[in-house]
């Protein structure tokens, strides 16, 4: 299933990581100029996760970003101007100034569900998207992200359990950046690896170096394909580090210097550049071209955003309810015969049938969405453990090429030890 990426794909990953960072750099400038109305949250150092995972999705697939997944939005096709205008509360922003940050979506074209500030809520929502896609025969995959912090919410567990019980085509990226605001992960969760959360739901999980974009991509790609094939949800823990504070106001002085230094030396873009040049995929000239392309784009996008007006005050009164015939345009797009879900073909006997029940063997999931007394232990991992530098198996070809393979696990463990002091 793993195949070499094309040169264009390698360069796409590079482009989107650079774009991700450039968009956020520009927003820091806008923030300092008081042009951003609310808070500004940074994904500095985590770009490989947003970009690598979203790049594994197809156009028809659905995603729901969290606050630090601007990169995923860009990959899915969101214009930088929309990101700028959201933060600047402009009238032309996707929410017309009604909400900020990455809190916007696009149901019809890009298939993006907006996050809200309450963490974990997207997990059952995207489970529902995945179930609806399956019901309609669309063969889509739904993906969302959660942080180490958000993985302790109740709805994370309700949602993931339900997704697992339903074998929904759903991929959850658990972005472990070691900090939930000021609280280190070790103070939140008594687990070495947050991927172990998956064991409780009998689903597969794996760990990946979140600063290695090719490893992130190929892990996500395999997870997406397996979810699409009906194998059920998969949890990917991407280990990384939040280089900025919780938001711009937070200098993050609680982060130990050594920890910061360690991760700054593992900048995902710098690592990837090293890999690309070692593979002769990127030379100085094409790097410069990409930089210029991004610069030109962002100057224009920023100008558009700055020229957009603030929303008229009376807009605040509108849109609470969906009224009128053309307000709701979403129609179920059937890609299977409707007759399969309507009588008489839908008719069943209303009894639970649990294949293999009592035999001590796995049901194989052939019957209705139940795992009764035969839940499979989560011993399988997506693809190859070695991608994560955390397992013992030999590494896959592509990830093996990817530059520094320092033990992420050891690093995060020692970092957390430091954090405990």
């Amino acid at each position, binding site marked *: 299933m793993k195949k070499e990426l094309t040169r264009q794909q390698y360069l796409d990953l590079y482009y989107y990581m650079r774009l991700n960072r450039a968009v956020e750099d520009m927003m820091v400038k806008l923030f300092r100029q008081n042009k951003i109305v609310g808070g500004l949250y940074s994904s500095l150092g985590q770009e490989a996760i947003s970009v690598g995972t979203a790049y594994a999705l197809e156009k028809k697939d659905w995603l729901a970003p969290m606050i630090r997944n601007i990169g995923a939005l860009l990959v899915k096709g969101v214009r930088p101007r929309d990101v700028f205008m959201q933060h600047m509360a402009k009238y032309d922003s*996707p*929410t017309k100034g*009604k*909400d900020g940050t990455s*809190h*916007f*979506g696009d*149901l019809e074209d890009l298939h993006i*569900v*907006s996050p*809200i*500030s*309450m963490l974990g*809520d997207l*997990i*059952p*929502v*995207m*489970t*529902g*998207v*995945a*179930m*609806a*896609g399956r*019901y*309609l025969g669309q063969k889509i995959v*739904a993906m969302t992200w959660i942080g180490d912090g958000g993985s302790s919410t*109740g*709805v994370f567990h*309700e*949602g993931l*359990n*339900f997704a697992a*019980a339903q074998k929904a085509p759903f991929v959850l990226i658990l972005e472990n950046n070691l900090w939930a605001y000021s609280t280190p992960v070790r103070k939140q969760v008594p687990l070495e690896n947050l991927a172990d959360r998956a064991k409780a739901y009998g689903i597969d999980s794996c760990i990946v170096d979140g600063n290695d974009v090719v490893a992130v991509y190929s892990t996500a790609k395999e997870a997406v394909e397996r979810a699409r094939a009906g194998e059920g949800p998969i949890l990917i823990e991407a280990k990384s580090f939040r280089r900025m504070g919780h938001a711009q106001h937070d200098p993050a002085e609680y982060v130990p210097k050594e920890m910061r230094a360690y991760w700054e030396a593992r900048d995902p873009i710098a690592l990837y550049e090293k890999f690309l040049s070692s593979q002769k995929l990127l030379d100085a000239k094409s790097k410069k071209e990409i930089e210029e392309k991004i610069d030109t784009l962002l100057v224009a996008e920023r100008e558009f955003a700055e020229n957009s007006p603030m929303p008229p005050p009376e807009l605040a009164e509108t*849109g*609470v*309810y*969906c*009224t009128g015939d053309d*307000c*709701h345009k*979403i*129609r*179920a*797009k*059937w890609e299977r015969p*409707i007759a399969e*879900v*309507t*009588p008489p073909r*839908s*008719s*069943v*006997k*209303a*009894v*639970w049938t649990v294949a293999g029940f009592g035999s001590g063997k796995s049901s194989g999931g052939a019957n*209705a*969405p139940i795992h009764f007394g035969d839940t499979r232990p989560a011993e399988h991992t997506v693809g190859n453990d070695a991608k994560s530098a955390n397992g013992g198996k030999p590494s896959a070809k592509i990830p093996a090429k990817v530059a520094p393979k320092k033990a992420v696990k050891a690093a995060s463990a020692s970092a957390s030890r430091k954090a405990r002091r």
Partner: protein
Amino acid sequence: MPKTNGAGPNGSASNGTQVTFLEAIKQAMFEEMERDPAVVLIGEDVGVYGGAFKTSEGLLERFGWERVIDTPISESAIIGAACGMSYCGLRPICEMQFIDFIVCAFNQITNFVAKGHYLWNAPAPMVVRGPSGGGVHGGPFHSANPEMYFVHTPGLKVIYPSTPYDAKGLLKAAVRDNNPVLFFEHKFLYRRIKGEVPADDYTVPIGKAVVRREGKHLTIISYAAMMHTSLEAAEALAKEGIEAEVIDLRTLLPLDEETILNSVKKTNKCLVVHEDTRTGGIAGEVAAILFEKAFHDLDGPLVRVTSLDTPVPYAPTLEEHFLPNAKKIFSAAKELARY
């Protein structure tokens, strides 16, 4: 329990049959699922078991596992998943096994579902329904009337019907509505009342109250089970020469101000009866509307007959003391009529 005579909002007769409140709800779900394959039912024990109160009995047999979805005990997952389904063009009906448990999904409903259209133009056409209310000695966690938590949430619609005709027509309207609709089913009514429902497809408009009994001396505003109690009290008042007009709100959000104002401008006195607890109940909102828009028409104070400001107690003696009843309404109305 008095019978509901007229089927339609105007009491018009039809060629339908007499069905229980519960049967009306089951019919509404069945017919909507027949009509539109985008309609699915999701909840705890709604499939094989047919729902704790048997409101979904037979639906699994007819529509299958993909459309009648048994879930784990995870109200947030039920609401969240339904919301995601609605984004893909489905029209899910969520069942809360008892409406008391809806608060387990409070965040999903009030923050995710309710705000989506306002914030990012994402309508969530879905229904959340379940058995509510007391009088059946269900105790503090199986008797609640949590409607007002949600009436305070812009973006939701809140329905609380009192007759089989309205239950069926409003539930069908809720399924077809493009907004999230909460649909409260008073469990005391499930098998205790019967009413006529038409054989043909029909809906009852959301947001419209109805005058159940005409009168001129005072207006009694109520909904759900207390509507029947109010009618009972109105009959007793009539024997004393007090003709009470009884309004059934049916929808709490949006509230039908027009019907309320028209009645009170005629009777000049208003009594609000609800089974919900007193503080923060819909009576307060009705009072505010009257003070803002009919102050000069009022000949007496606005009077509330409500449950006590306590949890719903378990013992029959305690619960009966907790709840409003026809006698309490009668006394309060008589007092009000003196003004």
